[in-house]
Structures are given as structure tokens and as C-alpha cells.
């Protein structure tokens, strides 16, 4: 039996998405900037995609920008606004649990003379609103907070954060990394007070290499890529039409089944959490109820090295992550797990299990059963 429980790392591209993309690659393959009919047809596809996302997010079509993925969306949002607004102020705010595609651009800006405040989180990974209130100042030009944390599934109080920002600062933009949240939650940037929103395709059963950034029309931003002036000169480069078709098709499916899939995921998650709680010396990190993301569970297994458990599960066809997959080929201590104050000895004993709408109860039960078998054996053989 196989169980792919690493859907927060990436997801399988659905056949429907793949088929739509093949059509866009092999038949309607024109360059949307071409003046002839082939170009016009491709441009129509691009427009349809923008129309869909504009409706889906309740924003304007001209506020949708397609990128190469989550990392580019986050980089464009942060570096682009910082560069365009540095005369208004050089202070940025983010949290200690952000994905590297947010925290690293922040660090890069620090080297260029910007000041960055990293907000702490509580034991459940929820950002401190008091700390935010204190940090916000005249100089603040951007606040960047992720919607759902990729390692423990903590859901941030986005609307409250937005409200606080608007109260205390007129000019600070609010960027939300919604890469783990989009497709699980219905997000309306206008209603929630979000100025920039990052989305990635391959977390939604679309392929790698395509993402999206919503940029409110009032946001002043500089491009990272200079070239042919596509997408209003904010993101030059021939539009990745097959990818855009893919992410749109995938987002359509998410929209259609949003509630149904979320309920299903919560059910799966609850089943898994219940099972984990029966295992010896295993604890779930963060919240587990409906106030947490429906598809991510972080578990610490005392006395077991996560890397070893991961490979032991792999031998049984079960695929999970230690920390976040993007960073896990270089073993390092996760800032998120440190941020929630996880005991030192558990930092390298923590695995992430993440589900998708196609995860079955059988897969969950199989994983729990194998965990129950493996843990005592692995705990016996440790470094002494």
C-alpha cells in the first residue's frame, strides 16, 4: 500500500489539469503578445484566467499577476513594495514562522538598510497581536504574515491583523502568503483587508512553475524582472500559458468543492490526530480543531530522529516531511518549531503529515498502524 501524505510539499497534478495544459501546449500554443490570430487566441486564454481569479477573489482583473510560483510571488510582493516605497519608510514587519521565501527576502532587505521586526507566536503558532500593535509605526511600509503556516497548520487571524494595521498606519501594505491556504479557504482580499496575496499552483494539484500574486491597484510596486513589459511591466516575460491554464483549472476545481473537500479533510485530520494520540510519547503540535488548517498535522515523536522515521515510513510506501520539504534537504532547525517553543529534544523528532482531498481513511489507518509498529523498534536503536 502507498500513502502520499506530503501534500503540503506538493500535490499530484490532476488528469483534468494535465489535459487542459496539453491542449494549451500543443494546440493553442501562441504567444499572447503576437499580433496574429494565434496570439489573440492565447491572449483570450490569459484573459479568461484573469477573469476567473478576479471573480474568485472578488478583485479586479488588472490586479491579478501570474508568476513562476510561490517564491516569486512572495519575493515580488516584498522586494517590489520595499523598493517602491522606501522613501515613505524603511520598516517592515513579519513573523518568526514565515516560509524562507518570505524570511529570506526580509533578511536581504535588512542588509540593504531596512529594519525588520519579527513578531513572536504563541505555542500554537498564532501571531501576537500585541506585538504587532507595538511594532507598527510611522516608518512601517509592509506587514507580511502567512495565512496558514506550512509546518504546523496554524491559521492566523488575518482580518484582525489587517484591522490593526489600518488603524495604526495609513501607508503600510498588508501582504499575505496564502500558499498553504488558498484552495482550502475562500479568501476575499478586499473584505479581509489584504493588499497583496501570494498563491502557488502546485499546492492545488496544478504543476510546479506557476503562481499568482494579487496586487491591489493602489499598491506602489517595482518589478523584479525587466524585459518585454508583459503584465503591465510588473512581471515581464512571455506568460506561461500552459501553467496559467493549469492553475486556473485547478483553482476552479477547488472552488467547486471547497466546503465538501474541507469537511472531508477535517474528517481525515481528526481520524489521524485521534490515532496519533493513542501512540506512545507522540504529541501533536499546535491546534487540531477547525481553528487549524484542515490538511496539516505536525507530530513530535519523542526519542526518534525524524529523518530515520521518515525513511522507515518511506520503506513502507508512506511519504511525509521532516519540517518543510523546501528546506529539508539541508537539515536545519526549523524556525517555526523553535518559534512555538517546542522542547529542544523534539525539534529533530518532528514530522509533518499533510493531506489532500484524495487522501483516504485506509491510507490514514495504514500510516497509523505502521507508526505503531515502527516507533518501539526505532526507539530501541538510538545513539548512546
Amino acid at each position, binding site marked *: 500500500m502507498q500513502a502520499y501524505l506530503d501534500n503540503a510539499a506538493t500535490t499530484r497534478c490532476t488528469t483534468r489539469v494535465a489535459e487542459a495544459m496539453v491542449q494549451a501546449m500543443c494546440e493553442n500554443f501562441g504567444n499572447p503578445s503576437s499580433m496574429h490570430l494565434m496570439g489573440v487566441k492565447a491572449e483570450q486564454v490569459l484573459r479568461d484566467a484573469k477573469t476567473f481569479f478576479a471573480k474568485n477573489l472578488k478583485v479586479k482583473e488588472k490586479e491579478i499577476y501570474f508568476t513562476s510560483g510561490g517564491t516569486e510571488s512572495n519575493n515580488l510582493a516584498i522586494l517590489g513594495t520595499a523598493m517602491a516605497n522606501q522613501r515613505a519608510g524603511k520598516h517592515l514587519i513579519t513573523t518568526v514562522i514565515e516560509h524562507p521565501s518570505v524570511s529570506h527576502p526580509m533578511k536581504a532587505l535588512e542588509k540593504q538598510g531596512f529594519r525588520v521586526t519579527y513578531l513572536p507566536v504563541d505555542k500554537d503558532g498564532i501571531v501576537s497581536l500585541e506585538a504587532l500593535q507595538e511594532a507598527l509605526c510611522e516608518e512601517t511600509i509592509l506587514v507580511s504574515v502567512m495565512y496558514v503556516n506550512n509546518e504546523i497548520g496554524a491559521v492566523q487571524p488575518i482580518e484582525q491583523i489587517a484591522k490593526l494595521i489600518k488603524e495604526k498606519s495609513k501607508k503600510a501594505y498588508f501582504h499575505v502568503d496564502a500558499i498553504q491556504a488558498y484552495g482550502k479557504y475562500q479568501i476575499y482580499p478586499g473584505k479581509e483587508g489584504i493588499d497583496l496575496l501570494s498563491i502557488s499552483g502546485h499546492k492545488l494539484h496544478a504543476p510546479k512553475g506557476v503562481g499568482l500574486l494579487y496586487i491591489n491597484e493602489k499598491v506602489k510596486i517595482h518589478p523584479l524582472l525587466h524585459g518585454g513589459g508583459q503584465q503591465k511591466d510588473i512581471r515581464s516575460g512571455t506568460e506561461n500559458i500552459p501553467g496559467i491554464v493549469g492553475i486556473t483549472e485547478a483553482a476552479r476545481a477547488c472552488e467547486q468543492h471547497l466546503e465538501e473537500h474541507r469537511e472531508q479533510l477535517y474528517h481525515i485530520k481528526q481520524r489521524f490526530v485521534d490515532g496519533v494520540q493513542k501512540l506512545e510519547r507522540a504529541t501533536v503540535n499546535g491546534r487540531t480543531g477547525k481553528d487549524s488548517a484542515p490538511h496539516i498535522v505536525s507530530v513530535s515523536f519523542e526519542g526518534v530522529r525524524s529523518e530515520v*522515521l521518515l*525513511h522507515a*515510513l*518511506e*520503506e513502507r510506501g508512506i511519504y511525509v516531511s521532516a519540517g518543510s520539504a523546501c528546506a529539508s534537504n539541508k*537539515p536545519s532547525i526549523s524556525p517555526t518549531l523553535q518559534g512555538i517553543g517546542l522542547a529542544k529534544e523534539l525539534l529533530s523528532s518532528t514530522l509533518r503529515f499533510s493531506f489532500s482531498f484524495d487522501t483516504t481513511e485506509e491510507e490514514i489507518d495504514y500510516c497509523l498502524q505502521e507508526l505503531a509498529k515502527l516507533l518501539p523498534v526505532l526507539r530501541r*536503536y*538510538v545513539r*548512546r
Partner: protein
Amino acid sequence: MFHAFLVKYGEIGVKGKNRYVFEDALIARIKHVLYPVEGTFQVTKDQGRVYVEAVGVFDYEETVAALQRVFGVVGICPVVKIPNQDIEGLQKEVLSYMHQMYENATKSFKVHTRRVNKRYALNSMEVSAAIGEKILQEFPGLRVDVHEPELILHIELRNYICIYSEILPGPGGMPLGTNGRSMLLLSGGIDSPVAGYMVAKRGVCIDAVYFHAPPYTSERAKQKVVDLAKKVARYTGAIRLHVINFAEIQMYIYDTCPHDELTILMRRYMMRIAEKIAMDTGCLALITGESIGQVASQTVQSIAATNDVCTLPVFRPLIAFDKEDIVTIAKKIDTYETSILPYEDCCTTFVAKHPVTKPRVDVIRRSEEALMGQIEEMVERALAEDEVIEIR
């Protein structure tokens, strides 16, 4: 401008009647490494010289780089080859060569002529003088020094004429395949690939064995070893890599023996298994990357305790090297970057906080007795499940 190379070989030259064996092995290796290089090449042996000649278009840099990986090659001289002609014609050719190579140079030089074609009108001294004179007239920056010249211009008079002045260094050593085959114990570290390279440099073909211990070592750790073997194979030719699952044996030792002796006992079993595969596959020796005192299992006592189980000779080419020197070679052969990737190998997984550093062979043998009865079967199983990967 160059379409041919003169390949200089060192030690082979002093061999006796079997010299042709070494030369033929060298030529075979040269042909082998040039196979993937862009271009068509003729490799010939001519009166104690090996020539590589490109027919038509070829990639100069790639060709030199390939030749520089052939053991037995001491130097590679890019050669300008021209048809046989009289001294006036030759002088013109030499001047054009000098203009391309040494325009505006200030150097001392001499001309060295080899006259294999005994029907050439002038003798070698006369040719050298005639050419030297022309060069002096044309290049004000050059002056003659026949004792310690900075530049030697070689002229070889054969059925054709060769002009060369540059010698690019080769790796030295002996051609592969002239010295049997040995089994390298390849971990994922810095040392073992270097050890394999060094022994192969003496003409020894290499096979390798890698011990993995899933789930304690990952698929990526294994991939890393495959990648390392590929890098080494650029020099040593095809490597047959044996991947042995060591987990069961490791666990059994862990359960049965004193923990501080775990590493030594593990290494004894690795040596036994490596030796068994070596004997079954026609390898005549083992190769390890051990260096005295580098870690607890490489003290003289530990090496003696490990060596105790072997009957084949064990080559340890790095035995007296400092780490820095090993790293220098690892960088030169381009294995370093791969070696330092941080994947756990099975030696470090369960290493004790304070392993024995001065094990006594008799004590270790006694500890090992506790394993007898069951471990033989595990070794058999590990050998039976040997996964062989052909690296080329």
C-alpha cells in the same frame, strides 16, 4: 592552430620487453576517454611516441581535459604538424607559429631538433641554428639560453614535421588495466574516493562496495555515493558498485555487543563482506580511505583490529596523509563538493559518544564470539541481496 597532440609518458618508457603492454593499455585508455569528446581522433604509436591527431573539427579544451585524466600520461604537447619541407619553408612555418604563441614575449629560449628522418638535408644542430637565427631576427624580446631556457621550441623531423613548445601536465601514474583489479570500500566521505583515485592511478582497475542501512541512511545518501563513483570513474573507467544492506547486521551488533566497540565490530564485518565480494569477482586487494588517527576507528590499534579479519592485502593510500592534503586531491578530482553533502552514513548513525580508541584484538575477538551462530546467516543474506550498479 593545433590538430595533434604528442603524449608523453613517464615510467612506461623504462619498462623492458613488455613495454608494448603498457603502451597498448595507454592507447586503449586514450581512445576510451576521447570517445565522448566532440571530434574524430587517430591515436597512433610511432617510434616511442604516442600521437593523438584530430581529423577535422574537434573541441580543443575538452580533448586536453580528457587526456589529462588518463593515468600514465605525464605531459600533453599540442603540436603543429606540417608536411616535410626544406629549411626555408620550415623557417616560415616556425615564425608563424612563434607569432601566434609568443608575440611580444620576453623570454630566453632554445631550439631543440630531433632528426628522425635521416635524409633531411641539414643535421639537427644546423636546423636548430638556422631556426634560432630567424627567431632572433624577428623577435627582439627573445634571447638564446641553451642551458636553462624558459622556452624550448621542439622541432621533430620525420616523414612530416612537428613543432611544439608547450607541455601541459598529465596525471602521471600507470595506464589502467596494467595492474589487476581491487575493491574499494566507498563511503560517502571525502577520503574513500581519493583513495580509489590514487590506487587506480597505479594502473589498478576499481570496483567498489557501499554499505547502507535503511532507514538510518537515506536514498539520497546512496545517490550521493553513486554520484561519487561516477566522478571517480571519469579517471578509473567503469566501476561496478556493490550496494550492501548492512542494517540487520548493524542492529544485531548493537543488541549483542558492548556499545563502545560497535564501530570496530561493524568495520570488521564490512571488511569481511568486502573481501568476500572481492574474492568472488576477481579483485586481488581491498582499498580503504583510512588515515592514521583521523577518527577513533582509525587509530593504529583500531586499524590493526579491523585488519585482523582480512587475508587479502588492504591498500590504504592515504594512511599518512593529513586531512588538508586529502581535501586538496578531492578538490582536484572534483569529488569534494559531493562528499560534503550532509547525508548520514551508516558508520555515524549509532556511533558511541566515547568509542574505544585502543581496542585489543583479543578483546574484540572475544566480543565477536557473542555474535557467532546467527551473524553468519545475516552476512549470507546481505551478500545474496547485493545490489550491483554499473557505473561508467
